[in-house]
């Protein structure tokens, strides 16, 4: 199976999630070995996912947890007859 670039692009997400079937995976890898354009697309997409998974990319506001539990305490005690 020989793939053109645009067909490889359609497989990038599946490739990153390791969900390609063996035949497709082999074809994509063969293409990537010689195609700088597709390798760059793959690499940049992977960089984005690394950045996304970094837990410092999305942070909690200061005091969030405290306010959340204070509100829950009010709700919980209110629904148990003030106890």
């Amino acid at each position: 199976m020989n793939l053109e670039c645009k067909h490889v692009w359609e497989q990038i997400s599946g490739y990153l999630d390791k969900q390609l079937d063996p035949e497709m995976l082999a074809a994509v890898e063969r293409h990537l070995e010689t195609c700088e354009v597709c390798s760059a697309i793959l690499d940049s997409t992977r960089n984005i996912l690394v950045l996304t998974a970094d837990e410092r990319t999305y942070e909690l506001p200061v005091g969030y947890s405290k306010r959340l539990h204070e509100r829950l305490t009010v709700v919980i005690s209110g629904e148990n007859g003030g106890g």
Partner: protein
Amino acid sequence: MKTAAATNEAALIARVLAGEDGLFHELIRPYEKLVYVTIFAIVKNETEAEDGAQETMISAYRNLKSFRGEAKFSTWLVTIAMNEARKRLRKAKAAAEDSLDEGSEEGEGDYTPAVLTDWREIPLEALERKELKKKLREAVGKLPEKYREVFVLRDIEELNQEETAAALGITVTLVKVRLHRARMMLQKMLVPYLKSAAPSRGGFFRRWFQ
């Protein structure tokens, strides 16, 4: 086989339902960030996200007896959080139309990645940069809603395909399609910033074409 954490969680849920309501605090503690970030990534507003997270947890407390333990507790919470986020987004949209979300039906739009010439591998330290994280959050915020939802659950919250499909009420196939499109749209939006994070070749043309 259930993990020890899952077993503890099931025991905690049973105790809360049996009347030890105060233990609800312990039950949700591991998921505070999950719920906030899910809502924030959808509504793009800190205050709204915090209010929404509180409402989600209150709703989870009030409806805990309807949790059957078929899904993971975290998936159940995410489902509530996602509904809360959608509700808030609708309200915000009624006030100010979000043109980017208009006309984004399946099959429309451009999901091809940006083709890079002069690409250099980016060292991990460069990805640590704050500006890049900010750009990423902005780009995620620009995704049409249905792609954003899938991206948030799969790539930010790292739910698996089945959990994501269950939380959004869509098929696994649709999760895959939307996730791929979301990633390609982000790649296109973020490539200019990724490129500037790569070590410079220092050439005149490179600077010229940035």
